[in-house]
């Protein structure tokens, strides 16, 4: 009887072991798995908002930033808009040290508190602020799959940004216009904010300190409050309904206009999910 049990056990272990493993042979990069939908040249494409919650003293955050850049390269700027939100414990500036750079913003801190992201432990991010089956706050390893998933959705709104910038007085006037592409229910809000690229400062990267790290897509602040402005009435919206909002602000002297962008996105207030995003450089 003992032999019988031993044989049965050996068979079960054998089956298990052979079915348990999958050795991947090089090359490990998957060149044939291109998820990018073809760019039809149509203005009304779905554009995904990727928010990367980060901080200069977060040692794993550069991995996430590199992933965001890779996704921009893979999908193209017409399909992905990135905002790097510096907020929480890892983003606290330390005057008198090389980590004295303050990249926090009121809107970023407000969003971070609301969604509870840095509390989870950065780097973390959100893709269109959608609550997926595995959560809304996502590790960077999930971003690619979720961006791809969001890009499969049909665009529900067209979104355009027109900027006018006076280099003399640093006054920016931005007009964000949009058109709903289908009948929709719910309250929709337009959020407009400013990001800046190519800011140099110290950043932890694993166990190394990079003194001249280049920060990209840094959220500098909101233009129309941390939660934006409502763009429809009575919770209903009809197909082809349009809106247009114009805002004027004076850029902070520390910001480099040539590196700044206006980012706009529209979200459903009830669950905060973003249905469309857009980005436009200030000085282009």
């Amino acid at each position, binding site marked *: 009887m003992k032999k019988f049990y031993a044989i049965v056990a050996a068979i079960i272990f054998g089956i298990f072991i052979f079915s348990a493993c999958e050795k991947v042979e090089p090359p490990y*990069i998957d060149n044939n798995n291109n998820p990018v939908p073809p760019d039809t040249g149509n203005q009304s494409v779905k554009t995904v908002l990727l928010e990367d919650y980060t901080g200069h003293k977060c040692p794993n955050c550069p991995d996430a930033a590199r992933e965001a850049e890779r996704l921009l390269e893979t999908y193209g700027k017409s399909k992905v808009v990135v905002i790097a939100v510096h907020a929480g414990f890892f983003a606290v500036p330390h005057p008198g040290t090389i980590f004295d750079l303050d990249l926090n913003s009121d809107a970023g801190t407000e969003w971070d508190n609301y969604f509870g992201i840095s509390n989870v432990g950065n780097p973390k991010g959100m893709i269109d602020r959608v609550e997926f089956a595995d959560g809304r706050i996502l590790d960077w390893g999930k971003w690619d799959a979720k961006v791809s998933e969001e890009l499969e959705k049909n665009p529900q709104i067209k979104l355009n940004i027109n900027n006018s910038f006076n280099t003399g007085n640093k006054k920016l006037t931005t007009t964000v216009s949009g058109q709903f592409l289908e009948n929709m229910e719910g309250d929709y809000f337009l959020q407009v904010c400013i990001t800046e690229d190519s800011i140099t400062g110290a950043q932890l990267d694993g166990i190394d300190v990079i003194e001249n790290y280049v920060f990209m897509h840094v959220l500098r602040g909101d233009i129309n409050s941390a939660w934006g402005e409502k763009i429809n009435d009575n919770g209903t919206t009809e197909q082809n309904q349009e809106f247009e909002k114009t805002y004027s602000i004076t850029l902070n002297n520390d910001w480099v206009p040539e590196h700044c962008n206006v980012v706009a996105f529209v979200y459903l207030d009830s669950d905060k999910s973003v249905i469309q995003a857009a980005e436009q450089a200030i000085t282009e």
Partner: protein
Amino acid sequence: MKKFLPAALLLLFFSTVTRAQMSDIWNKSEIHGSFEVDGQYYHADEPLGIYDSLINGRVFGFNGFADLTYTLGKFSAGLRYESYMPPMAGFDSRLEGNGFPHMWASYSTDRFSFTVGNFYEQFGNGLTLRSYWEWTLAYDNSINGVKIQFEPVKGLLVKGVYGTQRFFWNKYTKNSRGIVKGLDAELDFNQAFDKFADSKLRMSVGASAVSKYQRDDNHTYKMPRNVGNFAGRLALGYGKFNFNAEYAYKINDPSAVNNYIYKSGESLMASLSYSTRGLGVFLMFKRLDNMSFKSDHSATGNVLDINFLPPLTDPHTYSLMAMYPYATQPNGEMGIQLQVNYKIPRKSKLGGKYGTNISFNYSQVNDIVRNPINDTTGIGESGTLGYTSPFFQFGDKVLYRDLNLEIEKKFNRKFKGLVKYMYQEFDMAIQGHAEKGVVFSNIALVDMTYKFTSKKALRCELQGLWTEEDKGNWAAVLLEYTVSPHWFFNVQDQYNYGNPVGSERLHYYTGAFGYTMGATRFSVSYGRQREGVVCVGGVCRVVPVSSGFYVTISSNF
């Protein structure tokens, strides 16, 4: 009709079960459980950098649970309610919510045991699989599925598990995370074979195999959908000596933790101990290389861990000695630990009337050696084999070193004391502060207890930490008055008097009292919580600085 079905079944059940049977069931049934609620009220404390804007209206944090287990003969079932409304500061915000995340039922016979629902399990040391719950970390990687345990012959225990792991409150849906399956077998020679039954040699061997399945949803890399982790273990005992060893091998498992490299993972743990009256010696070796094993390749942090990587360093409980706790480095570490416990006999010259206990511990953890796989690929580069690493070679970088000596002596019936010294090296990169380099510290403490009567005692703790790095020197004092078996009162202060920044030379004071009645305990404290890291078994969470009241009530029944 569906509405009435449960009621009809209940009616049928009660109509067929006699009153005597009901009485019998009632008498044989047992319910056990535990209960705890922890609440924290926060207020602004400007010197600590806590402003109302930071608290943002969330002035109260609440963590609570109730765990119930019902047994009736061979049947048992249980459930646990948890509530984080909202979670206290330092706990993952994804915990926010309440409900029953843990429900299970089990039936056991002499040879079989079946469990369905949420369960915990461990194979060997946990290198391939360990699911467990640690309340202080709010850590729970329980498996929801099926567990079968089978003892075909005496001394041979076979276990199998199949299921998905808990991820906060998110229910498993198709492809939302991986599926875990595992087998384990352990053969105890002394029980299984007659000729070993009375042998002085005690021996057992074990083997485990765990695999996870996850859909390949990565558009950049070719991901293995099935990743296996295998281990073999041996336990030998002869007289006063014991030897334990376990080796684990994990095939390619690219993940966010290892930066998507395809190198296999390896781990070896070995320990040798000798124990006799008055003397215990324990020596341990550990090597980990790329051994993070999660049921979601993109997950980071303390979530969805399938395995457990046991710690090697001495866990400290005194506050300043626990200031720089070591966290296991799943991507690679190599270490040794030596522990010696000796009791100088009673009525000897040094031992005195009651004897004297001496404990010595030395532990050191280094990084592993990483060599490039070729001339053109960076070490640890994504989408490659990452690096090569000689198995028995320690890396040059010391991550942690701890040498401590403790002497405990009872002087008379009323007075006893403990003195302890520790030298510690701690690489701040472990806490994500690589820019701070290595903290070299000397820590000393005295812990004295004086009994006024058989029920009333006063304990005093004095500690000092001296370092030129990080936040500089600290001093700590604690006074605790106990009236057994019900009351305790204490006040304590930790003072960062050596902080290089003058404005940060702060006191972290706390006052507390508590009442214990049987298995129920109630305590209230007020004061400041310094920023730090809490580790249990090498798994850590960050505790942010806070100020306010802390209330806890716990009970077992």
